[in-house]
């Protein structure tokens, strides 16, 4: 039993991280494309952008629903505490996702597409920004009492460091959205998004550097973790890999490659994510509440794992099939 009480929360932490990572990558490019659609020079080009998302956006968004359900089931305390602390940005995110989704469907049936184009782009931007604020607030810590309940101000998420994370995440989404479009389009539109990818890569890099260098000053816990010798190898290897990937990303963009910019961006996302994971683990409500304190019962986690664990490869399989069925360039019409 000792073993399971350590093992099961850890497994669920990893599964949650996987769901969140899949969400950030997959809906990340959806939201990025949504933001980029605000800059589309013509209606036909915007249609290509939207068509590239048509068959995938709702499945991609479902990873967020799944992450929510799994967090609720595996760490009920964290679900209540974090969502209550983030009341404002969570509802802003929901608002953004609702605007994005309905604009997508309404635009198809509308004669005058302009208001829905605007709503699609702004909804995407709002969702991306709110997610960044949620992430930034959780990373800088959520004050709790001894029982793990939220005790801070309802405005805890309004601060400069959350804003920096939000802006950086928006840039990251624009980057992955641009590289997805390089993959799915051709000609003039593809060249346009090589340029947006290059720009977004530079701004994302700037934001990431800013976060990396300011985080240790903002949070005591992060500072300790960064200088903890156990984790030192991670904090040496991860930045080096990051630099290598960024160099590769810029090179592949310069060489007009189609697939590699997207692949390198995804790898950069995974790398950043691993870095964040190592910084917070085993906290599920940073800085103080760990996965062991916030978890549901062991039997509950075992039960969930038998069902959801089996389904993870199946879900991945048919999602990948969906991408394969629609592989290749998107054309207007």
């Amino acid at each position: 039993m000792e073993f399971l009480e350590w093992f099961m929360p850890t497994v669920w932490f990893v599964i949650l991280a996987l769901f969140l990572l899949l969400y950030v990558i997959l809906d990340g490019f959806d939201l990025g494309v949504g933001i980029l659609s605000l800059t589309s020079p013509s209606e036909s080009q915007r249609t290509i952008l939207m068509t590239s998302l048509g068959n995938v956006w709702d499945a991609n968004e479902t990873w967020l629903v799944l992450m929510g359900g799994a967090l609720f089931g595996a760490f009920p305390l964290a679900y209540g505490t974090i969502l209550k602390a983030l009341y404002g940005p969570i509802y802003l995110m929901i608002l953004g996702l609702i605007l994005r989704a309905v604009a997508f469907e309404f635009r198809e049936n509308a004669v005058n597409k302009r208001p829905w184009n605007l709503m699609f782009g702004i909804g995407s931007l709002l969702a991306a920004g709110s997610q960044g604020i949620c992430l930034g607030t959780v990373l800088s810590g959520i004050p709790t009492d001894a029982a793990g309940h939220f005790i801070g101000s309802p405005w805890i998420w309004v601060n400069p460091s959350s804003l920096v994370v939000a802006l950086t995440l928006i840039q990251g989404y624009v980057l992955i959205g641009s590289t997805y479009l390089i993959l799915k389009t051709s000609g003039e539109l593809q060249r346009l998004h090589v340029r947006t990818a290059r720009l977004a890569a530079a701004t994302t890099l700037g934001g990431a550097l800013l976060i990396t260098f300011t985080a240790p000053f903002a949070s005591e816990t992060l500072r300790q973790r960064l200088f903890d010798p156990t984790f030192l190898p991670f904090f040496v290897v991860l930045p080096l890999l990051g630099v290598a990937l960024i160099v590769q990303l810029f090179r592949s963009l310069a060489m007009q490659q189609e697939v590699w910019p997207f692949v390198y961006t995804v790898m950069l996302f995974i790398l950043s994510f691993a870095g964040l994971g190592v910084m917070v683990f085993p906290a599920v409500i940073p800085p103080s509440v760990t996965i062991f304190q916030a978890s549901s019962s062991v039997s509950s986690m075992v039960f969930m794992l038998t069902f959801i664990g089996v389904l993870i490869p199946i879900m991945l399989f048919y999602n990948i099939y969906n991408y394969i069925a629609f592989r290749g360039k998107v054309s207007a019409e």
Partner: protein
Amino acid sequence: MLATLDVVTLSRLQFALTAIFHMLWPVLSTGLAIYLVVLEAIWLRTRNPLYYQQARFWAKLYVLNFGIGVASGLPMEFQFGTNWAPLSEFAGDFFGSVLGFEGAMAFMLEAGFLGIMLFGWNKVPPVIHFLSTVMVAFGANLSVFWILSANSWLQTPSGGTFSDGHFHVQNYFAAINNPFMVRSVIHMALATVETSMLVVAAISAWSLMRQKAPEFFLFSFKLALVILLAVAPLQILAGHESAVQVAEHQPTKLAAIEALWDDQAAGSSPAWTVLASPDEASGSNRWSLSVPGAFSWILETRPQLSQPLRGLNSWPTDQRPHMVGLLFYAFRVMVAIGLAATALMALSLLLWWRGGLSAASFARWPWFSWAWILSAPAGYLAIESGWVVRCVGRQPWTVYGQLRTADAASVLPVGEVLTSLSVFAVLYTVLLVFALYFGSRIIAKGPNLTLEPPGLAAPMILPDRSGNV
């Protein structure tokens, strides 16, 4: 009024508003998906382009509806954390797991295959396409199963013990298969199919009344009618069974939906109240219209009650639901709509059987067309009323008999909840108006009767969102 609003009331209002709005969309996502499976099966068997065009036309409404359903579902899940954190902590072990299963088993299945179902006609072989449509329908119906299982657990919590402010699961299968589960899942699944078919029949009747694409819409009307005739009688039975389980497990809810104030002894034969003006202050009805001796016939199909029934007055006021008038009439609205719709179906069957049902009938008898057209909004109203009975009738409990709603809500600043509630109220009103507008545009435009089915040597062309290649 505003000054007296506390955060629990606001969170309840917000949950009610978002749930009532959300419920509008999964109806078609679930019920119409089954219709699409039937159409595609007929098409694959006959290879008649008419059935292919049917599948494509109804899928257009399906996708418009689906997007709003996905988006409006998000606040349902997240509210458990933002506004109902004590409930999440109390019941998360079980309740959260079930929402997780719903996501992994049902929701992802539906979303993962939807893209292929909508845009994959020329991308995958017909068998794979058919399989995708089946998976969308299967996923949507699995959602019904998990959501109704979770909600039933709130009604009849079982499968574990309650101690130190937590539900501890001992037997997951007993918790999933709680006393309310089976009959509630059946009642809801039938409701989605019935209302979806009313929608198909209503749109068909509207188009036939205007003599638009008569062959096309006469077929869709008849197919919907056949399914309705199979489903509606079963639904009356399922509805009755649901009332019986309420009598067994939630006596306060039964007393409220029947405005039953005083105890009734076993062996007695109380009257059944048809209409009344319930007055909670005096604990009686101001006036009522009732059928003597009918209550036990309706509940137990026998002349006398076999079990005593407790009236509302025998409970302390903090242990029984309020808003008795709402519960009493919501229940009656649901039942009346179910019965009236079934009568309309029987009448239409009679016409069909006597050879009087043709495309021209709908133009000749506008009242007949209008009866069918109005049956669609009535179907939605019946479903919403049913949910009001189910969840308002559960009060003052969130987890029946175990966790009070007042204790299940997060302590939040009133302004915060008031803001999110107001935004939802405005946003959802606007969305509903536009959804109806765009839906009616699809209907007014009608089906594309020149659409060619994907051939074996079909070129690889990506259809656009409106379904035109």
